[in-house]
């Protein structure tokens, strides 16, 4: 890669993230003026509490996409883990702590299942995780017979959904810890930096002496573990576990990652970009449902998802459009 090329990619990235922060600032400014009770401390912690699960999935999705893969199964796995946790605590009368531990372990196992199929058998991640997307959700439905809902968890566990430390909800701490973990992993460790190399050029990375298949497996396992943690947070927040928990979350997670500037082809992206993407989506969906006109029509959820979809399309098309313009002028527009 020539240095000029890397500089132009860098400037593009920079522009993307600057653009995203600008969108974020505009969002906040608009909602502060137009949405009811948007800027109150109560609502701020509300935003953090409601964005934690999708945020966690997005943080875990980021290394997967960085290696050039994708994981469509995380939303279904969240549902399956929530149901398994319900089975352990209710049907088997386990204590909360071991049940939570085993749930996270099973999430990791499910991730390892994806990883095995993708790396050992060299199957395309898209179709493998599409299969497990159906499989995990199907298992959750089969276990609950499609209708059963697990309620009345241990009050100590449910208290976690409302727990605060130093004024920040528990979800905020978990999200912050996950962001720190993935940030250090992806940006500061040799192990994690190989994800980027693999996404940029798997063959070149192999020639550089990195065990590509073994390294590619790790993000999928981490995604499984994270989905299980997100399932516990989801259950604690909604005080129930159902087979349809987390439906569509994989889309929101991918949206946050792509919005945050990670290339969907792999090879470039940052964790703080993903965090900004998560914030943009979380604030949009919270703020839009507080705009009086939307509130009156009761269409907050639909409008937020619609705008998220449109944002994703824009975020996707923007670099391609810039590239088209640049190649048309035969010189970089800075």
């Amino acid at each position: 890669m020539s240095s000029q090329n890397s500089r132009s990619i860098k400037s593009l990235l920079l522009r993307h993230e600057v653009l995203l922060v600008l969108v974020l600032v505009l969002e906040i400014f608009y909602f502060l003026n137009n949405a009811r009770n948007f800027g109150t401390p109560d609502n701020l912690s509300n935003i953090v509490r409601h964005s934690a699960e999708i945020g966690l999935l997005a943080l875990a999705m980021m290394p997967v996409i960085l290696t050039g893969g994708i994981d469509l199964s995380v939303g279904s796995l969240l549902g399956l883990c929530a149901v398994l946790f319900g089975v352990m605590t209710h049907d088997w009368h386990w204590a909360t702590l071991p049940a939570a531990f085993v749930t996270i372990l099973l999430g990791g196992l499910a991730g390892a299942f994806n990883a095995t199929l993708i790396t050992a058998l060299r199957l395309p991640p898209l179709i493998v995780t599409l299969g497990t997307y159906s499989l995990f959700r199907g298992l959750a439905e089969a276990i609950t017979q499609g209708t059963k809902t697990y309620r009345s968890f241990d009050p100590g566990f449910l208290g976690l959904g409302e727990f605060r430390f130093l004024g920040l909800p528990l979800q905020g701490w978990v999200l912050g810890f996950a962001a720190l973990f993935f940030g250090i992993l992806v940006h500061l460790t040799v192990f994690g930096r190989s994800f980027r190399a693999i996404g940029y050029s798997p063959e070149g990375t192999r020639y550089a002496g990195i065990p590509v298949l073994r390294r590619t497996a790790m993000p999928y396992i981490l995604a499984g573990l994270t989905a299980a943690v997100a399932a516990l947070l989801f259950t604690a927040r909604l005080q129930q576990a159902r087979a349809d928990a987390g439906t569509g979350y994989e889309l929101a997670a991918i949206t946050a990652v792509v919005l945050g500037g990670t290339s969907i082809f792999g090879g470039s992206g940052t964790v703080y970009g993903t965090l900004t993407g998560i914030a943009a989506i979380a604030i949009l969906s919270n703020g839009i449902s507080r705009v009086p006109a939307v509130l009156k029509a009761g269409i907050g959820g639909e409008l937020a998802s619609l705008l998220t979809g449109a944002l994703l399309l824009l975020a996707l098309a923007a670099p391609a459009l810039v590239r088209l313009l640049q190649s048309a002028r035969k010189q970089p527009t800075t």
Partner: protein
Amino acid sequence: MNRYFRELSVTGALVLLLAVLAIWAPHFYQPQPLLSRFTAQTPALILTIGMTLVMIVRQIDISVGAQFGVCAVVAGLISASGAPLIVALAAALAAGAIMGALNGVLIAWMGLPSIVVSLATMVTWAELLRLFQQGKFINLPANVQWFGLSQSAGQQGLIFGSVLLLAGVSWLLKNRSGGRHIYAVGSDAEAARLAGINPKLTTFTVFVIMGTLAGLAAVLNMVQSPQVDPKCGVALELRAIAAAVVGGVAVSGGRGRLWGSFAGLLLLATINPALTFLHVEAYWEKAIQGLVILLAVIADGLRSRRQTS
């Protein structure tokens, strides 16, 4: 023999399942319920035709379920206003073609990955539909159902028509240059370009065809019931993709046959009634569907490994 291995093994599995049903659950073969069950699959069959083309050209389209829903509501609203069915059909086809063209522009000409583009358009169309229709069913005039014919005549017409379409597209795919272009672009877009094919145009056209077929499928679905459910397209894309994958269409492009996808669809569609007839609970359908997809790709992976080593 080896050339058709994947297609034949799926067909074999289907025959086996049908034989099991014939022995342990012969009432599966009562003519009227069987006819109804087959008819209910015709919209999915039409989508599977399109999805097979999309996958042969090495792309994927997960927005077809949402496209199907939008087309169904468009056709439903037009029919409900009293316009003749042909107008509703034309509108649904046009709506589908436009949505397919949007995917095609973003994927073929902007070079964006189809999985994310169709993910984004899926969310956009599904949520627009939800905003617009708010989940309300559309009641249709009486003459829409079964094209105003008797039920069995309508069912036979639907089955005959969609199988005829399958055969026709299959023939075009195998024997006309346009069909061969799809295989060529899916195997190696650069080589196809050097051979004088326009890969972007081919990819774009396939997505427009996919959208148009989604419109057709929506109308074929509409004539089967007195109402239009705006959620009728949910998860249909998975069914079409599953049918194609099980039927031997390679996700890596350039490989696959329509009759394989057809056998795949029938196999998947028979699993659910088979579960009921064999007294396995129906809640397992989705899990088994996922398992069948995984088994099919694992089989493909093992086979291609053995061939390369």
